[in-house]
């Protein structure tokens, strides 16, 4: 689906990403993890063509990213940013309908198809009942689902999500990831999620890329990449790794328990 080839990126000469390469297959669920400042959010913006790498290139469906117009990209990629500022009183439905922009003509109205797709997107993300409410008055979990619905209204083949569950409580975190999982299963959506939540990533993603100081330090299936040693060196803190009793996926806990060393001591 998308392939990143040795990209370098710097903000005003300040290096953020160095020689980053990886690719994501169609229908894959990839989690990108790593410490603060590792360049994860920057990487997502590069994948959506919002930023351009200074070196290297990105291929989307075998075509270089700069060959696509913004409109074409918006039909292929849905981007859920970390923050979704709304300065004016748009309703949730209006926000979702804005996802139809890449399909609308300059002076054309909103078509029945636009309403249908928006409605469907809101059902999938379980926010149909919010459609008349003002976006600014919604709770964090509701906002996040509306923003996801707006991205789905673009009918993309790939979703890029930047820390989508950071502001959500446990219930909404799980709920949100279940929706992503369903989208992947039922629509073969390719999903790339940037997150600090290693445990949720382990539970729902199939592959993990670890970024540290702008470099890929590990890339592979969840069970192989998420080892105690690696995570300790990446996050520079003592950790304990256990198995989730139900799923068998790795669960990371802060502190180290072997040798009788107490957590927090």
């Amino acid at each position: 689906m998308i392939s990143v080839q040795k990209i370098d990126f710097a903000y005003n000469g300040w290096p953020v990403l160095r020689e980053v390469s990886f690719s994501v297959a169609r229908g894959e669920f990839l989690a990108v993890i790593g410490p603060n400042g590792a360049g994860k959010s920057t990487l997502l913006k590069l994948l959506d063509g919002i930023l351009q790498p200074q070196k290297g290139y990105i291929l989307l469906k075998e075509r270089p990213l700069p060959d696509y117009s913004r409109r074409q990209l918006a039909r292929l990629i849905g981007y859920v940013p970390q923050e979704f500022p709304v300065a004016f009183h748009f309703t949730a439905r209006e926000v979702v309908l804005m996802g139809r922009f890449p399909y609308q003509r300059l002076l054309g109205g909103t078509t029945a198809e636009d309403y249908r797709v928006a409605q469907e997107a809101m059902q999938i993300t379980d926010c149909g009942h919010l459609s008349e409410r003002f976006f600014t008055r919604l709770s964090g979990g509701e906002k996040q689902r509306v923003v996801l619905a707006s991205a789905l209204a673009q009918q993309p083949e790939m979703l890029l999500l930047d820390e989508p569950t950071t502001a959500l409580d446990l219930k909404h975190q799980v709920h949100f990831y279940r929706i992503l999982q369903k989208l992947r299963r039922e629509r073969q959506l390719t999903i790339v999620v940037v997150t600090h939540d290693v445990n949720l990533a382990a539970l729902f993603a199939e592959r993990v890329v670890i970024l540290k100081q702008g470099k890929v330090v590990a890339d592979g299936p969840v069970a192989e990449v998420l080892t105690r040693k690696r995570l300790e060196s990446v996050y520079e803190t003592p950790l304990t790794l256990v198995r989730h009793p139900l799923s068998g996926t790795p669960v990371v806990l802060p502190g180290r328990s072997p040798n009788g060393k107490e957590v927090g001591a």
Partner: protein
Amino acid sequence: MKRNHPMTAVLVSFLFLGLVVIFTPLIGSQSLNFSRVLAYLHGQTTPDGTIFFRIRLPRVLLGVLTGASLSLAGVVFQALLRNPLATPYTLGISSGGAFGAVLMIKLGWSITWLGFSTVQTAAFIGSVLTILLVYTLSRRAGQISIHLMILAGVSISYFFGALILMVHFLADFTQTSQMIRWMMGGLDVVDFAVIGRTLPLLLLSFAVLFALARMLNLISLSEITALSKGVAVLRVQKIAFLFASLITGLVVAMSGPIGFVGLIVPHLMRIFTGPDHRYLIPASLFFGGAFLTLCDTIARTVLAPVEIPVGIITALLGGPFFLVLLFRQK
């Protein structure tokens, strides 16, 4: 809270504009008889017809165009700067224009070309140069920095403010009162030819900005959101910025820096249409035109035969009216 269909607000504001355009020219220090005005259309030269078509109608038209332009520019700048407090003058367009006008009054040159006076020309050039300066200062690495733009605009406003005071200080008494009168803004100094020459440019700008409505919706959220949903942000920003500045510069040159309309009309209309620019733009155009014309009618009748500068009326009437609506809305 639920809104009515935004189209209702657009239609109501259009009807309101229609009524204002038909009836306000009948009001004035000399009251007119409607049937005698109509007789003028059938070739009869009546004094009522002459006053209506030659004196009052041009002025009403100028009021409509000025009010509509300032309201639309307010809408566009609020979206582009993502700031509900932005006005057509936030970026210093009017202070640049005012400096041009004030300087020309001081110099006292008076050449008329294509119906435009030197003061008008200087005001327009001042506006255009200011906006080009603000734009150049806020370009960074192929993007427009909104933050820099607001800062640059506000500092340049202060700078020109100081220059204007300087010119005032150096001017003699007659010039000073001329300058103060210009700064107050008014719709009384323009003849039909000027309106006719600027009309195509204004209408073109209205059309272009309306065509950008959906993109302005997205840009009013954030640049990243707009990009990710398929808007060529930089190009849209450039076009919107150019045309909103152009109409502001033109009306400032024609009628002076009439305040307040560009701030309150967009807000007022947003209460009724919501923030969707496809409705907000036409509603603001219609209502803004009607509002300013109404204010001007009051300005030229309430102390007749003395005419109060319309800028004073817009703020005196608009301020309290707007506050009442704001607090009733909750």
